[in-house]
Protein backbone atom coordinates (compact mmCIF):
# COMPACT_ATOMS: atom_id res chain seq x y z
CA UNK A 1 0.00 0.00 0.00
CA UNK A 2 2.93 2.36 0.82
CA UNK A 3 4.43 1.90 -2.63
CA UNK A 4 1.09 2.42 -4.33
CA UNK A 5 0.41 5.48 -2.18
CA UNK A 6 3.74 6.97 -3.33
CA UNK A 7 2.90 6.28 -6.98
CA UNK A 8 -0.44 8.01 -6.41
CA UNK A 9 1.28 11.11 -5.00
CA UNK A 10 2.44 14.08 -7.11
CA UNK A 11 6.14 13.02 -7.17
CA UNK A 12 5.12 9.42 -7.89
CA UNK A 13 2.84 10.50 -10.73
CA UNK A 14 5.66 12.67 -12.11
CA UNK A 15 8.01 9.66 -12.06
CA UNK A 16 5.52 7.35 -13.79
CA UNK A 17 4.22 9.84 -16.33
CA UNK A 18 7.63 11.19 -17.31
CA UNK A 19 8.69 7.64 -18.20
CA UNK A 20 5.51 6.98 -20.17
CA UNK A 21 5.64 10.37 -21.90
CA UNK A 22 9.26 9.91 -22.96
CA UNK A 23 8.55 6.38 -24.24
CA UNK A 24 5.62 7.60 -26.30
CA UNK A 25 7.55 10.66 -27.52
CA UNK A 26 10.41 8.33 -28.49
CA UNK A 27 8.08 6.12 -30.55
CA UNK A 28 6.43 9.10 -32.30
CA UNK A 29 9.76 10.78 -33.06
CA UNK A 30 11.12 7.51 -34.45
CA UNK A 31 8.03 7.16 -36.63
CA UNK A 32 8.53 10.70 -37.98
CA UNK A 33 12.24 10.09 -38.65
CA UNK A 34 11.45 6.86 -40.50
CA UNK A 35 8.45 8.23 -42.43
CA UNK A 36 10.30 11.31 -43.68
CA UNK A 37 13.57 9.38 -44.11
CA UNK A 38 15.53 11.92 -42.07
CA UNK A 39 19.19 10.90 -41.96
CA UNK A 40 20.92 14.20 -41.33
CA UNK A 41 22.34 13.85 -37.78
CA UNK A 42 21.87 17.53 -36.98
CA UNK A 43 18.13 17.27 -37.67
CA UNK A 44 17.82 13.82 -36.10
CA UNK A 45 19.40 15.22 -32.95
CA UNK A 46 16.84 18.04 -32.81
CA UNK A 47 14.03 15.51 -33.02
CA UNK A 48 15.61 13.36 -30.31
CA UNK A 49 15.92 16.42 -28.04
CA UNK A 50 12.11 16.38 -27.79
CA UNK A 51 12.30 12.95 -26.12
CA UNK A 52 14.68 14.31 -23.46
CA UNK A 53 13.20 17.76 -22.86
CA UNK A 54 9.44 17.21 -23.23
CA UNK A 55 8.96 14.69 -20.35
CA UNK A 56 10.75 17.01 -17.92
CA UNK A 57 7.93 19.54 -18.26
CA UNK A 58 4.98 17.55 -19.62
CA UNK A 59 3.40 16.45 -16.33
CA UNK A 60 3.43 19.85 -14.55
CA UNK A 61 2.35 21.52 -17.79
CA UNK A 62 -0.61 19.21 -18.30
CA UNK A 63 -1.57 19.56 -14.63
CA UNK A 64 -1.49 23.35 -14.97
CA UNK A 65 -3.76 23.14 -18.01
CA UNK A 66 -6.14 20.66 -16.37
CA UNK A 67 -5.79 20.17 -12.58
CA UNK A 68 -8.38 17.36 -12.81
CA UNK A 69 -6.11 15.27 -15.01
CA UNK A 70 -5.16 12.98 -12.10
CA UNK A 71 -8.80 12.43 -11.17
CA UNK A 72 -10.62 9.10 -11.43
CA UNK A 73 -12.93 10.45 -14.13
CA UNK A 74 -10.02 11.48 -16.34
CA UNK A 75 -8.24 8.18 -15.74
CA UNK A 76 -11.34 6.26 -16.76
CA UNK A 77 -11.44 8.11 -20.09
CA UNK A 78 -7.65 8.08 -20.67
CA UNK A 79 -5.89 6.30 -23.52
CA UNK A 80 -3.60 4.63 -21.03
CA UNK A 81 -4.06 4.67 -17.26
CA UNK A 82 -0.79 3.61 -15.63
CA UNK A 83 -2.55 2.91 -12.30
CA UNK A 84 -4.17 -0.18 -13.87
CA UNK A 85 -0.75 -1.69 -14.53
CA UNK A 86 0.70 -0.44 -11.27
CA UNK A 87 -2.20 -1.92 -9.27
CA UNK A 88 -1.91 -5.20 -11.13
CA UNK A 89 -1.23 -7.94 -8.55
CA UNK A 90 0.28 -11.28 -9.50
CA UNK A 91 -1.64 -14.07 -7.74
CA UNK A 92 -3.39 -11.33 -5.83
CA UNK A 93 -0.26 -10.69 -3.74
CA UNK A 94 2.65 -9.02 -5.55
CA UNK A 95 2.01 -5.65 -7.23
CA UNK A 96 4.20 -6.59 -10.22
CA UNK A 97 3.73 -3.31 -12.07
CA UNK A 98 4.79 -1.17 -9.12
CA UNK A 99 7.67 -3.45 -8.10
CA UNK A 100 8.85 -3.67 -11.74
CA UNK A 101 8.76 0.11 -12.05
CA UNK A 102 10.83 0.61 -8.91
CA UNK A 103 13.36 -2.01 -10.08
CA UNK A 104 13.72 -0.43 -13.52
CA UNK A 105 14.09 3.05 -12.01
CA UNK A 106 16.65 1.75 -9.48
CA UNK A 107 18.80 0.03 -12.11
CA UNK A 108 18.58 3.06 -14.42
CA UNK A 109 19.63 5.39 -11.59
CA UNK A 110 22.67 3.20 -10.85
CA UNK A 111 23.65 3.08 -14.53
CA UNK A 112 23.31 6.89 -14.72
CA UNK A 113 25.42 7.32 -11.58
CA UNK A 114 28.25 4.99 -12.55
CA UNK A 115 28.31 5.38 -16.32
CA UNK A 116 27.42 9.04 -16.77
CA UNK A 117 27.53 11.26 -13.69
CA UNK A 118 30.69 9.94 -12.01
CA UNK A 119 32.69 9.79 -15.28
CA UNK A 120 31.65 13.39 -16.09
CA UNK A 121 32.65 14.58 -12.60
CA UNK A 122 35.94 12.65 -12.82
CA UNK A 123 36.67 14.03 -16.30
CA UNK A 124 35.93 17.59 -15.15
CA UNK A 125 38.24 17.26 -12.14
CA UNK A 126 40.99 15.67 -14.23
CA UNK A 127 40.80 18.28 -16.98
CA UNK A 128 41.35 21.00 -14.37
CA UNK A 129 44.71 19.48 -13.53
CA UNK A 130 47.45 19.70 -16.08
CA UNK A 131 48.10 16.67 -18.29
CA UNK A 132 50.64 14.55 -16.32
CA UNK A 133 53.02 14.07 -19.25
CA UNK A 134 54.97 16.81 -21.01
CA UNK A 135 53.08 18.66 -23.72
CA UNK A 136 53.80 21.41 -26.20
CA UNK A 137 51.88 23.60 -28.56
CA UNK A 138 51.13 22.09 -31.96
CA UNK A 139 52.79 25.02 -33.70
CA UNK A 140 56.09 24.08 -32.04
CA UNK A 141 55.95 20.48 -33.24
CA UNK A 142 56.91 19.99 -36.91
CA UNK A 143 54.60 16.98 -37.44
CA UNK A 144 51.62 18.66 -35.80
CA UNK A 145 52.34 21.94 -37.57
CA UNK A 146 51.99 20.14 -40.89
CA UNK A 147 48.46 19.09 -39.80
CA UNK A 148 47.43 22.50 -38.43
CA UNK A 149 48.66 24.35 -41.49
CA UNK A 150 46.23 22.41 -43.66
CA UNK A 151 43.28 24.08 -41.87
CA UNK A 152 42.03 27.45 -43.08
CA UNK A 153 41.27 30.22 -40.56
CA UNK A 154 41.75 30.09 -36.80
CA UNK A 155 41.00 26.85 -34.95
CA UNK A 156 41.06 25.69 -31.32
CA UNK A 157 44.51 25.17 -29.79
CA UNK A 158 46.21 21.82 -30.52
CA UNK A 159 48.63 20.35 -27.98
CA UNK A 160 51.02 17.49 -28.61
CA UNK A 161 51.55 14.97 -25.82
CA UNK A 162 54.88 13.25 -25.53
CA UNK A 163 53.36 9.79 -25.42
CA UNK A 164 53.95 6.81 -27.69
CA UNK A 165 50.42 5.45 -27.18
CA UNK A 166 47.86 6.55 -29.77
CA UNK A 167 45.67 9.17 -28.06
CA UNK A 168 43.41 11.94 -29.29
CA UNK A 169 40.90 13.84 -27.20
CA UNK A 170 39.54 17.28 -26.56
CA UNK A 171 38.58 19.31 -23.53
CA UNK A 172 35.34 21.28 -23.36
CA UNK A 173 34.50 24.76 -22.18
CA UNK A 174 35.55 28.19 -23.42
CA UNK A 175 39.26 27.32 -23.43
CA UNK A 176 38.68 23.88 -24.92
CA UNK A 177 41.60 22.40 -26.85
CA UNK A 178 42.59 19.26 -28.73
CA UNK A 179 45.30 16.95 -27.44
CA UNK A 180 47.11 14.51 -29.71
CA UNK A 181 49.91 12.10 -28.81
CA UNK A 182 53.19 11.70 -30.69
CA UNK A 183 52.22 8.04 -31.06
CA UNK A 184 49.11 8.90 -33.02
CA UNK A 185 50.92 11.43 -35.22
CA UNK A 186 53.24 8.58 -36.22
CA UNK A 187 50.61 5.85 -36.48
CA UNK A 188 48.40 7.55 -39.08
CA UNK A 189 49.14 9.28 -42.36
CA UNK A 190 48.83 13.11 -42.21
CA UNK A 191 45.46 13.33 -44.01
CA UNK A 192 43.94 10.86 -41.55
CA UNK A 193 45.42 12.73 -38.58
CA UNK A 194 44.01 15.93 -40.05
CA UNK A 195 40.53 14.39 -40.40
CA UNK A 196 40.63 13.04 -36.84
CA UNK A 197 41.81 16.40 -35.44
CA UNK A 198 39.07 18.21 -37.42
CA UNK A 199 36.53 15.90 -35.78
CA UNK A 200 37.86 16.91 -32.34
CA UNK A 201 37.79 20.59 -33.34
CA UNK A 202 34.09 20.15 -34.00
CA UNK A 203 33.63 18.74 -30.47
CA UNK A 204 35.48 21.72 -28.98
CA UNK A 205 33.38 24.20 -30.93
CA UNK A 206 30.12 22.45 -30.05
CA UNK A 207 31.24 22.13 -26.42
CA UNK A 208 31.51 25.91 -26.14
CA UNK A 209 27.77 26.29 -26.44
CA UNK A 210 25.90 26.16 -23.10
CA UNK A 211 23.03 24.25 -24.74
CA UNK A 212 24.85 20.94 -24.22
CA UNK A 213 25.30 21.65 -20.52
CA UNK A 214 21.61 22.60 -20.19
CA UNK A 215 20.65 19.41 -22.01
CA UNK A 216 22.78 17.31 -19.67
CA UNK A 217 21.21 19.01 -16.63
CA UNK A 218 17.70 18.33 -17.97
CA UNK A 219 18.69 14.76 -18.71
CA UNK A 220 20.09 14.45 -15.15
CA UNK A 221 16.71 15.52 -13.72
CA UNK A 222 15.24 12.33 -15.20
CA UNK A 223 18.09 10.13 -13.93
CA UNK A 224 15.58 7.36 -13.13
CA UNK A 225 14.10 7.26 -16.63
CA UNK A 226 15.34 4.34 -18.79
CA UNK A 227 14.03 5.94 -22.00
CA UNK A 228 15.97 9.13 -21.28
CA UNK A 229 19.09 7.04 -20.64
CA UNK A 230 18.84 5.34 -24.04
CA UNK A 231 17.79 8.43 -25.98
CA UNK A 232 20.55 10.56 -24.46
CA UNK A 233 23.06 8.00 -25.69
CA UNK A 234 21.54 8.22 -29.16
CA UNK A 235 21.90 12.00 -29.02
CA UNK A 236 25.57 11.59 -28.12
CA UNK A 237 25.98 9.17 -31.05
CA UNK A 238 24.32 11.67 -33.38
CA UNK A 239 26.75 14.28 -32.03
CA UNK A 240 29.64 12.09 -33.20
CA UNK A 241 28.10 11.99 -36.67
CA UNK A 242 27.65 15.78 -36.67
CA UNK A 243 31.36 16.13 -35.86
CA UNK A 244 32.17 13.61 -38.62
CA UNK A 245 30.25 15.80 -41.08
CA UNK A 246 32.10 18.88 -39.86
CA UNK A 247 35.45 17.11 -40.33
CA UNK A 248 34.46 15.85 -43.77
CA UNK A 249 33.38 19.39 -44.79
CA UNK A 250 36.53 20.99 -43.43
CA UNK A 251 39.01 18.54 -44.93
CA UNK A 252 36.99 17.49 -47.97
CA UNK A 253 38.12 13.89 -47.30
CA UNK A 254 35.45 11.77 -45.58
CA UNK A 255 37.29 8.61 -46.66
CA UNK A 256 40.36 9.66 -44.66
CA UNK A 257 38.24 10.00 -41.51
CA UNK A 258 36.62 6.62 -42.17
CA UNK A 259 40.06 5.05 -42.54
CA UNK A 260 41.28 6.75 -39.34
CA UNK A 261 38.25 5.40 -37.43
CA UNK A 262 38.95 1.91 -38.75
CA UNK A 263 42.58 2.01 -37.74
CA UNK A 264 41.94 3.53 -34.34
CA UNK A 265 38.93 1.50 -33.23
CA UNK A 266 38.46 -1.59 -35.36
CA UNK A 267 41.91 -3.10 -35.58
CA UNK A 268 41.63 -5.14 -32.42
CA UNK A 269 39.11 -7.95 -32.69
CA UNK A 270 36.87 -7.76 -29.68
CA UNK A 271 35.82 -10.95 -27.97
CA UNK A 272 32.21 -11.88 -28.30
CA UNK A 273 30.17 -12.43 -25.18
CA UNK A 274 30.83 -16.01 -24.13
CA UNK A 275 30.56 -18.49 -21.34
CA UNK A 276 32.40 -18.41 -18.04
CA UNK A 277 32.28 -14.62 -17.63
CA UNK A 278 30.99 -12.55 -14.78
CA UNK A 279 27.96 -10.31 -15.31
CA UNK A 280 30.21 -7.24 -15.25
CA UNK A 281 32.46 -8.74 -17.93
CA UNK A 282 29.42 -9.62 -20.01
CA UNK A 283 28.14 -6.05 -19.63
CA UNK A 284 31.51 -4.62 -20.67
CA UNK A 285 31.66 -7.00 -23.66
CA UNK A 286 28.15 -5.95 -24.66
CA UNK A 287 28.99 -2.28 -24.33
CA UNK A 288 32.16 -2.61 -26.39
CA UNK A 289 30.18 -4.58 -29.00
CA UNK A 290 27.62 -1.76 -29.16
CA UNK A 291 30.47 0.80 -29.43
CA UNK A 292 31.93 -1.22 -32.30
CA UNK A 293 28.57 -1.23 -34.10
CA UNK A 294 28.35 2.53 -33.70
CA UNK A 295 31.87 3.03 -35.14
CA UNK A 296 31.01 0.72 -38.05
CA UNK A 297 27.84 2.71 -38.80
CA UNK A 298 29.87 5.96 -38.79
CA UNK A 299 32.41 4.44 -41.18
CA UNK A 300 29.67 3.17 -43.48
CA UNK A 301 28.05 6.59 -43.48
CA UNK A 302 31.30 8.36 -44.34
CA UNK A 303 31.99 5.87 -47.12
CA UNK A 304 28.46 6.15 -48.56
CA UNK A 305 28.60 9.94 -48.59
CA UNK A 306 27.05 12.39 -46.15
CA UNK A 307 23.27 12.65 -46.69
CA UNK A 308 22.02 16.15 -47.35
CA UNK A 309 19.09 17.43 -45.33
CA UNK A 310 15.82 16.00 -46.63
CA UNK A 311 12.64 17.85 -47.52
CA UNK A 312 9.62 18.47 -45.32
CA UNK A 313 11.55 18.33 -42.03
CA UNK A 314 9.70 21.29 -40.55
CA UNK A 315 6.38 19.75 -41.49
CA UNK A 316 7.50 16.46 -39.91
CA UNK A 317 8.70 18.27 -36.79
CA UNK A 318 5.42 20.16 -36.37
CA UNK A 319 3.31 17.04 -36.91
CA UNK A 320 5.45 14.95 -34.56
CA UNK A 321 5.31 17.72 -31.93
CA UNK A 322 1.52 17.93 -32.11
CA UNK A 323 1.21 14.14 -31.93
CA UNK A 324 3.56 13.98 -28.91
CA UNK A 325 1.67 16.68 -27.00
CA UNK A 326 -1.83 15.41 -27.78
CA UNK A 327 -1.34 11.68 -27.22
CA UNK A 328 0.64 12.16 -24.03
CA UNK A 329 -2.10 14.35 -22.60
CA UNK A 330 -4.28 11.24 -22.46
CA UNK A 331 -1.58 9.05 -20.92
CA UNK A 332 -1.76 9.24 -17.12
Amino acid at each position, binding site marked *: *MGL*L*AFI*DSYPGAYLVQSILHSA*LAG*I*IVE*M*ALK*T*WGIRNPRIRQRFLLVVIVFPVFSFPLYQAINP*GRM*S*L*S*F*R*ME*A*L*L*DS*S*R*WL*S*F*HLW*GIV*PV*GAVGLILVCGVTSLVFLFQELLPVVRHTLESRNAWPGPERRGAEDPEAKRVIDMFPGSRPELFVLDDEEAALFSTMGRSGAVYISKGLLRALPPEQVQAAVAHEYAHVQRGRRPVLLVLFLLRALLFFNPVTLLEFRRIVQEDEKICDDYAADLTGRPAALAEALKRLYLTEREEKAGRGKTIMEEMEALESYSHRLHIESRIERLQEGIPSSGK*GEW*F*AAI*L*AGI*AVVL*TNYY*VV
Partner: protein
Amino acid sequence: MMGRVYRFVAFAGGIALLVAALKLLNWLPLAAQKDLLKEYRDLEDAREAAGIETVFVPSYFPQNLSWPPSMIWAQGTPFPALLLEFGKPVGKETVLLISQAESESFFPGERIRFLEVKQSVPYSLKGREARLQVGVCPGGETCAGIAWKEGKYHIVVRAKTSPIELIRITESMLR
Protein backbone atom coordinates in the same frame (compact mmCIF):
# COMPACT_ATOMS: atom_id res chain seq x y z
CA MET B 1 3.58 16.55 -53.66
CA MET B 2 2.46 12.89 -53.80
CA GLY B 3 5.41 11.97 -51.59
CA ARG B 4 4.32 14.56 -49.07
CA VAL B 5 0.73 13.27 -49.01
CA TYR B 6 1.91 9.66 -48.81
CA ARG B 7 4.18 10.46 -45.87
CA PHE B 8 1.44 12.37 -44.08
CA VAL B 9 -0.98 9.45 -44.51
CA ALA B 10 1.68 6.94 -43.40
CA PHE B 11 2.44 9.01 -40.30
CA ALA B 12 -1.25 9.48 -39.46
CA GLY B 13 -1.75 5.72 -39.89
CA GLY B 14 1.17 5.07 -37.56
CA ILE B 15 -0.34 7.37 -34.92
CA ALA B 16 -3.70 5.60 -35.28
CA LEU B 17 -1.98 2.25 -34.72
CA LEU B 18 -0.16 3.67 -31.71
CA VAL B 19 -3.43 4.90 -30.20
CA ALA B 20 -4.98 1.46 -30.79
CA ALA B 21 -1.96 -0.17 -29.10
CA LEU B 22 -2.33 2.18 -26.11
CA LYS B 23 -6.02 1.29 -25.80
CA LEU B 24 -5.13 -2.39 -25.90
CA LEU B 25 -2.47 -1.85 -23.24
CA ASN B 26 -5.07 -0.07 -21.15
CA TRP B 27 -7.52 -2.93 -21.48
CA LEU B 28 -5.10 -5.83 -20.81
CA PRO B 29 -4.87 -5.43 -17.01
CA LEU B 30 -8.68 -5.35 -16.82
CA ALA B 31 -8.84 -8.62 -18.73
CA ALA B 32 -6.23 -10.25 -16.51
CA GLN B 33 -7.43 -8.92 -13.16
CA LYS B 34 -11.14 -8.59 -12.73
CA ASP B 35 -11.21 -6.37 -9.66
CA LEU B 36 -9.47 -3.29 -11.07
CA LEU B 37 -11.49 -0.07 -11.29
CA LYS B 38 -14.09 -0.28 -14.03
CA GLU B 39 -17.66 0.55 -14.84
CA TYR B 40 -20.51 -1.87 -14.07
CA ARG B 41 -24.13 -1.99 -15.19
CA ASP B 42 -25.36 -3.92 -12.20
CA LEU B 43 -24.82 -2.95 -8.55
CA GLU B 44 -24.64 -6.56 -7.43
CA ASP B 45 -21.81 -7.31 -9.89
CA ALA B 46 -19.99 -4.19 -8.72
CA ARG B 47 -20.43 -5.12 -5.06
CA GLU B 48 -19.03 -8.60 -5.70
CA ALA B 49 -16.06 -7.27 -7.69
CA ALA B 50 -15.23 -4.80 -4.94
CA GLY B 51 -15.66 -7.41 -2.22
CA ILE B 52 -17.87 -5.09 -0.20
CA GLU B 53 -20.47 -6.85 1.94
CA THR B 54 -22.82 -3.98 2.67
CA VAL B 55 -23.40 -1.21 0.20
CA PHE B 56 -24.91 1.95 1.61
CA VAL B 57 -27.61 3.17 -0.77
CA PRO B 58 -30.38 5.69 -0.09
CA SER B 59 -34.01 4.69 0.11
CA TYR B 60 -35.10 8.30 -0.24
CA PHE B 61 -34.63 10.20 -3.48
CA PRO B 62 -35.70 13.75 -4.23
CA GLN B 63 -38.15 14.22 -7.09
CA ASN B 64 -35.52 14.81 -9.74
CA LEU B 65 -33.68 11.56 -8.93
CA SER B 66 -34.52 7.91 -9.12
CA TRP B 67 -33.03 4.45 -8.88
CA PRO B 68 -30.93 2.94 -10.58
CA PRO B 69 -27.70 4.97 -10.68
CA SER B 70 -26.65 6.33 -14.05
CA MET B 71 -23.13 5.04 -13.48
CA ILE B 72 -21.51 2.49 -11.18
CA TRP B 73 -17.75 2.19 -10.70
CA ALA B 74 -16.10 -0.41 -8.50
CA GLN B 75 -12.71 -1.86 -7.66
CA GLY B 76 -11.28 -4.46 -5.30
CA THR B 77 -7.61 -3.56 -5.90
CA PRO B 78 -5.64 -1.69 -4.60
CA PHE B 79 -8.46 -1.22 -2.06
CA PRO B 80 -12.22 -1.93 -2.19
CA ALA B 81 -14.20 1.02 -3.46
CA LEU B 82 -17.58 1.68 -4.99
CA LEU B 83 -18.98 4.79 -6.61
CA LEU B 84 -22.59 5.47 -7.52
CA GLU B 85 -23.49 8.40 -9.71
CA PHE B 86 -27.00 9.67 -10.27
CA GLY B 87 -27.85 11.97 -13.13
CA LYS B 88 -30.88 14.04 -14.05
CA PRO B 89 -33.46 12.03 -16.03
CA VAL B 90 -32.87 14.39 -18.97
CA GLY B 91 -29.30 15.17 -19.96
CA LYS B 92 -26.10 13.81 -18.54
CA GLU B 93 -25.61 16.18 -15.64
CA THR B 94 -24.48 14.45 -12.45
CA VAL B 95 -26.50 15.55 -9.42
CA LEU B 96 -25.64 12.99 -6.76
CA LEU B 97 -22.45 11.08 -5.99
CA ILE B 98 -22.08 8.37 -3.37
CA SER B 99 -18.65 6.94 -2.70
CA GLN B 100 -17.82 4.09 -0.34
CA ALA B 101 -14.14 3.16 -0.09
CA GLU B 102 -11.52 1.81 2.26
CA SER B 103 -9.23 4.71 1.38
CA GLU B 104 -9.94 8.37 1.94
CA SER B 105 -8.17 9.21 -1.35
CA PHE B 106 -10.95 7.65 -3.42
CA PHE B 107 -13.46 10.29 -4.38
CA PRO B 108 -13.93 11.79 -7.84
CA GLY B 109 -14.89 15.20 -6.47
CA GLU B 110 -14.43 16.73 -9.90
CA ARG B 111 -17.75 15.21 -11.01
CA ILE B 112 -19.57 17.56 -8.63
CA ARG B 113 -17.01 20.25 -7.96
CA PHE B 114 -17.31 22.87 -5.27
CA LEU B 115 -16.46 26.24 -6.71
CA GLU B 116 -16.50 27.63 -3.23
CA VAL B 117 -17.12 26.03 0.18
CA LYS B 118 -19.17 28.49 2.23
CA GLN B 119 -19.53 26.40 5.36
CA SER B 120 -17.85 23.31 6.72
CA VAL B 121 -19.24 22.12 10.05
CA PRO B 122 -19.25 18.93 12.15
CA TYR B 123 -22.63 17.19 12.03
CA SER B 124 -24.07 14.29 13.98
CA LEU B 125 -25.55 11.91 11.44
CA LYS B 126 -27.62 9.36 13.34
CA GLY B 127 -24.93 9.28 16.02
CA ARG B 128 -21.98 9.26 13.58
CA GLU B 129 -19.42 12.07 13.50
CA ALA B 130 -19.74 13.55 10.04
CA ARG B 131 -18.56 16.72 8.30
CA LEU B 132 -21.10 18.69 6.38
CA GLN B 133 -20.06 21.12 3.68
CA VAL B 134 -22.21 23.67 1.92
CA GLY B 135 -21.04 25.64 -1.06
CA VAL B 136 -21.54 26.72 -4.61
CA CYS B 137 -20.99 24.64 -7.74
CA PRO B 138 -20.10 26.04 -11.17
CA GLY B 139 -23.18 27.79 -12.52
CA GLY B 140 -24.06 29.18 -9.10
CA GLU B 141 -26.04 26.13 -7.96
CA THR B 142 -26.10 25.24 -4.28
CA CYS B 143 -24.07 22.13 -3.52
CA ALA B 144 -23.71 20.16 -0.34
CA GLY B 145 -21.49 17.31 0.73
CA ILE B 146 -21.18 15.09 3.74
CA ALA B 147 -18.47 12.61 4.74
CA TRP B 148 -18.19 10.14 7.59
CA LYS B 149 -16.59 6.83 8.50
CA GLU B 150 -18.78 3.74 8.60
CA GLY B 151 -16.70 0.86 10.01
CA LYS B 152 -13.71 0.49 7.69
CA TYR B 153 -15.31 2.53 4.90
CA HIS B 154 -15.05 6.22 4.16
CA ILE B 155 -18.38 7.38 2.81
CA VAL B 156 -18.75 10.62 0.90
CA VAL B 157 -22.03 11.91 -0.48
CA ARG B 158 -22.15 15.05 -2.59
CA ALA B 159 -25.16 16.50 -4.36
CA LYS B 160 -26.33 19.54 -6.23
CA THR B 161 -29.01 20.21 -3.70
CA SER B 162 -29.69 21.97 -0.43
CA PRO B 163 -28.05 20.64 2.78
CA ILE B 164 -31.47 19.68 4.14
CA GLU B 165 -32.22 17.51 1.13
CA LEU B 166 -28.74 16.01 1.32
CA ILE B 167 -29.21 15.06 4.96
CA ARG B 168 -32.55 13.40 4.10
CA ILE B 169 -30.77 11.33 1.44
CA THR B 170 -27.88 10.32 3.71
CA GLU B 171 -30.11 9.53 6.69
CA SER B 172 -32.06 7.16 4.43
CA MET B 173 -28.79 5.29 3.81
CA LEU B 174 -28.44 4.41 7.50
CA ARG B 175 -30.65 2.34 9.71
